Each structure stands twice: as C-alpha cells, then as structure tokens.
C-alpha cells in the first residue's frame, strides 16, 4: 500500500555533487606562510569551517530533504529548542529543531521512535559538526502515509485538479441528489436526516460503497461513475464518518480523486471530522467538514424558504398597494380632464361666451347710437340755417307758377297774365303778372 518515496537513508549515498557547484574560489582565501621552509597556503579553522558550510548550503539537495531514522538523545533545552540524534545501524546525524518550529510539528519526536525528519543539512561552526536543521517530523508508519499524502497532493495540485476556477457552483434547488457512502453507520443516517429536515423535495439516490479497506477506492469510483451515467442527480455527496487516518485513507486515493475530478455532477465532500483534510476534499467542488455539513450545503433550508415566501407575499401586497395608489392619482387627473371636456362644461362655456358677445354688442351699439345722436344734432342745426323760412322772415318771398307750381327764379319764366302764388313768412297770396 505504501508507495516508495524518495527519501534519504543515512547510509545510502546521495552525494551527486557537480564539481562546478563547489567553485567557491572567491571565498577561499587562505593565507600564505612559511611551512617547513616553504611558502604554503593555510586556512584558519574558521575559514575552513566557513568553506565547508558554504559547500553544504550551496547544494540544493541538502537544503530540502527528508531523512529517516530512529530518535535518540532527545532533549529539550531551557530555551525550548529540541536537540536529538537520528540514527540507523550504521550512522548518526545530529538534529536541531528550533522552538519556533514546534507548533507546526506533525509529530513530537521521542526517543526510540522511527521518524522522518524534514529540514536542511548545514554546519554548526562552533562545534565543527554538520547537522540537520529540522522543520518537520512525522512518525514512520502513519508518517509514511502523511508523506504519500503530501506527494499526491502536490502532484494533483500541480496538474490543476484543485484549481479554484474549475470549482462549480451548486444548484440552489437540486431536484435529485446522489450520495456515495456506506449504507450503514452514522454518516448515511445523518445525511438523510438533514436532507429530510431541510429540503424533503429533493429525491435521494444512494450508491452504497465500502468506505475503508482495499476495495473502497474502486467502489467509490464506480459509484461516482454510475451516478453520473445513470441518473440526472444535480449534486453528489461523497462522504464518510470520522475515523483514523488509515480508515479515511480511501479518500486520499488517486483513483477517487480523479473520479471526483471527472464527475459531470458537482461534488461535495464530507469526510471525517472538521480537522480531517483528504485529497477528495481538495478536488471536490465544495468541501464540507462532516457528512451532515455536506448535506446542509447540498440543499436549501425550508425554514428559510418559508420565511422568504412570507416576505415575498408581503412584497407583492405592498407593491400592489403602491400600484393602486398610483392608479388612483392617475384616475384623479383623468377625471379632472374629463370634467373639462364634458358637454355640459362646453355648453356652460358657450353660454358664457354668448353672454360676453351680447354684452359687447350692446356696448358697441350704444356707443354707435351716441355718435349718431351727436351727428344728428349738428345736422339739425345746419338744416335750420338752410330753412327758407328764415329767409322769408328776413323779407324775401317765393313766387311760383300757379299752373305748374314751378318756382319762378327768372323773369323769362312768366308772361303777362300768368297767375302766380307768392309765399311770404306768414302765408301766401295770389297775384297776376302785368
């Protein structure tokens, strides 16, 4: 089960040094002095130690490595740093672990334990020893699983299986859910209970699998594939209840990771407890801390939905009231407009107009009559000056022929013996022309 991982055993040779890597000519500055009668270069202890330290630190291999061995001479200094020796049957390696690294340790080393230590190899000048500056310790056994986990995680991450941009969003109201888990135990019961309580509308299709042991990974893969192939489930829950690292191991299987990655249906993982992280969690579209939490994330909560529905009803009623009020205002405007356009209003307006015209007519007429009156008085006066009677009064007379009535204004109009009427101011008399 445990894969071979590249790690360094104390006795297996790993020095694959390239000559160029050690060309620290500029730093190699030995003095020259008289040695046995000849001028020879020599180093101080510090210079040589510094030179060797540079060799260590210039080799990338030595700056990032895992070493397997048994812990001995483990002690913690007053300052809180931890010193121990890693050994195997043929060699020993001094190790130093600074206090600052302790909180991040996967495993606290103890005497007699087989462990894997990660760190960098370098030289402690004051003692002239080389040692491993440790930043991580894992127990052999589960430690190997951890290492395997780390390596698979890095590889799949590098391949893009965990990429945030490929995480799919979950449907808000899934009609059908697929559940990949054991048909017995707390996990399936918790999932079904949560789904029934929150959103009984969703139909659940369980694809039962083993969730631990050698047969678990292929069964989990087959279940994911079957749900994709034969159902229209809109969300998959891949889950397992809590357990030891070994018990959860199926969810760190590469085949399972790839099946989740290939799933057309979005996947929620819910494996173990809050603190357990599996490869399946990293590949899944959504990671839930537990199986129950996975069920909660898969569906909406009907209590919440009922609240929203009540609010929507209120919103509808309020919006309708606003529409009615707006219509009422609009109707008010229309009624005013209608009143202005009604026949009665038209009649009223015409009647008023007629009245106005009549008044204006009367006014005009009166004015005109007044004018005429004035003119007539003038005319009467002028007529009076033209009245022949006033001439008669002044002593003139008007003669006219009796037979024709023609006024005689010239002598030739009459002959001797013609009868004429003569008008004077107070009457007339008759005469005969001589």
């Amino acid at each position, binding site marked *: 089960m445990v894969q071979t991982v590249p790690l360094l055993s104390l006795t297996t040779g790993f020095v694959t040094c390239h000559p160029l890597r050690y060309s620290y000519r500029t730093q190699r500055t030995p003095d020259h002095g008289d040695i046995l009668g000849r001028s020879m270069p020599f180093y101080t202890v510090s210079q040589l130690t510094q030179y060797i330290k540079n060799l260590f630190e210039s080799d990338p291999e030595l700056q990032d490595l895992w070493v397997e061995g048994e812990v001995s001479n483990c002690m913690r200094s007053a300052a809180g740093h931890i010193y121990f020796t890693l050994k195997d049957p043929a060699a020993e390696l001094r190790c130093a672990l600074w206090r600052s690294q302790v909180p991040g340790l996967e495993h606290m080393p103890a005497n007699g334990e087989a462990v894997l230590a990660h760190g960098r190899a370098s030289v402690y000048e004051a003692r002239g020893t080389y040692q491993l500056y440790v930043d991580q310790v894992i127990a052999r056994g589960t430690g190997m699983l951890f290492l395997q986990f780390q390596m698979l995680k890095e590889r799949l991450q590098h391949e893009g299986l965990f990429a945030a941009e490929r995480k799919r969003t979950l449907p*808000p*109201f899934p*009609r059908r859910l*697929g559940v990949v888990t*054991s*048909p*017995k135990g707390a996990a*399936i*019961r918790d999932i*079904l209970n949560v*789904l*029934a309580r929150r*959103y*009984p*509308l*969703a*139909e*659940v*299709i*369980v*694809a*039962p699998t083993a969730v631990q042991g050698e047969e678990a990974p292929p069964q989990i893969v*087959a*279940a994911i594939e*079957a*749900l994709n*192939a*034969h*159902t229209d489930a809109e969300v998959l829950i891949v889950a397992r209840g809590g357990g030891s690292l070994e018990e959860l191991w199926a969810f760190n299987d590469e085949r399972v990771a790839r099946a989740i990655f290939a799933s057309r249906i979005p996947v929620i993982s819910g494996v173990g407890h809050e603190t357990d992280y599996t490869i399946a969690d990293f590949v899944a579209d959504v990671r839930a801390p537990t199986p129950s939490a996975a069920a909660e994330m898969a569906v909406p909560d*009907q209590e919440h*939905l*009922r609240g929203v*529905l009540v609010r*929507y*009803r209120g*919103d*509808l*009623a309020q*919006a*309708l009231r*606003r*529409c*009615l009020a*707006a*219509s009422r205002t609009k109707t008010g405007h229309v009624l005013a407009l209608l009143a202005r356009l009604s026949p009665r209003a038209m009649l009223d307006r015409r009647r008023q107009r007629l009245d106005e015209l009549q008044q204006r007519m009367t006014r005009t007429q009166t004015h005109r009559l007044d004018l005429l009156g004035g003119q007539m008085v003038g005319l009467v006066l002028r007529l009076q000056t033209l009245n022949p009677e006033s001439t008669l009064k002044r002593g003139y007379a008007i003669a006219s022929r009796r037979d024709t009535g023609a006024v005689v204004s010239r002598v030739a109009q009459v002959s001797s013996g013609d009868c004429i009427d003569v008008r004077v101011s107070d009457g007339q008399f008759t005469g005969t022309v001589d």
Partner: protein
Amino acid sequence: MTETSDLTFEQAFAELERVVAQLESGDLTLEQSLALFERGTALARLCERRLDEAEQKVAQLSVAPDGTPAFSSFREAE
C-alpha cells in the same frame, strides 16, 4: 403563462422572484399589476404547498457486473 400546478418548486420560486421584482418596478397598468399580484400569490402558495406535501424519497442505485443499473428503494444496512 404556465399553469402553476405544472411548475416545479424551483420554477415556481424563480418565477415568483421575477414577479415580485416586476411588480415592484412599477410602471404597470392596473390590470397588469392585479394580474401579477394574483400570479405571484398563486406561486407563493404553490411553493408553500409543495414544501408541506413533500415526503423524502430515497432510492438505491446498484450496477450489475454487466453494467446494467438497477434502482430499488433504499434500506439502511444493519
């Protein structure tokens, strides 16, 4: 307009959201707003009824060695 009874919960809920938004946006005739109100109320009632009446269905999927899928009712294993 689809009969409300033909809608799934999801469809009814989504349409309800649209109706509320539309009715709130205003700018409607009185007839339109009354029709929207009635539609929205019917949709809300349908959603509530769907939740009230829902009963969880659980099926089990198993695949025969020849790849034939079979659905049965799920029973928790002992």
